[in-house]
């Protein structure tokens, strides 16, 4: 069971990292700059990714404990709620009939709608992780080999987003509501 937790946490973290990477692909491939709410949703995804990483990093002590899984579950639920609030807000802004929405749809849905689904899935996954504690048994494990790579991947994605958002906002405190240019280079 502890190994299953580690596998689930790894998959959870990588799904979130890939969603963040996909947002980058859309940003550069279609030239669509993320709006302020889009950036808030990215921040929500990053916060969510800290939940499974908490389990992976804590396991370096050689054990998956109930305490670590509980803390990670709590982080996942709270971060998921924060992200869901941002994406639900954006969905509501474009809910009126004939509203084209912000940006191009991907597989039929706008990115903020996909984000809302991702945040709700994260909350559900965190809940399942907490329920699964019933079957968690104590056992010593070797260090999980994917922990370092997963943490490094999240670090790279977050750092790349910092560069991107600084380029987009320039020296302004906030982003423009409908960004068109990278203000740092204007």
């Amino acid at each position: 069971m502890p190994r299953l937790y580690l596998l689930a946490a790894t998959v959870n973290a990588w799904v979130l990292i890939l969603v963040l990477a996909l947002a980058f692909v859309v940003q550069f491939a279609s030239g669509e700059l993320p709006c302020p709410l889009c950036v808030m949703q990215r921040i929500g995804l990053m916060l969510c990714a800290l939940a499974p990483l908490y389990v992976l990093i804590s396991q370096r002590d050689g054990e998956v404990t109930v305490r670590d899984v509980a803390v990670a579950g709590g982080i996942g639920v709270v971060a998921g709620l924060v992200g869901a609030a941002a994406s639900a807000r954006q969905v509501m802004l474009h809910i009126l009939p004939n509203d084209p929405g912000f940006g191009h749809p991907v597989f039929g849905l706008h990115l903020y709608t996909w984000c809302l689904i991702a945040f709700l899935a994260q909350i559900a996954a965190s809940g399942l992780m907490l329920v699964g504690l019933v079957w968690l048994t104590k056992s010593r494990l070797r260090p999980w080999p994917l922990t370092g790579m997963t943490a490094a991947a999240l670090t790279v994605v977050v750092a790349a987003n910092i560069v991107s958002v600084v380029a987009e906002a320039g020296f302004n405190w906030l982003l423009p509501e409908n960004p068109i240019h990278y203000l740092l280079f204007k």
Partner: protein
Amino acid sequence: MVYALFMLAILIVLGAMWRRHRAAVPLLLVTLVLVVAFLVSDMTTPLTLSF
């Protein structure tokens, strides 16, 4: 710039987690509170539905 600061805070939390610093979870909670506060304060446009 404020968004970059939030992301920087997330990187710091990740670093603290990696080093197993006891401030990791409190820092994460502070970051979450700041993000929520910013999100709420940024909701300046009222949601109005007209039919």
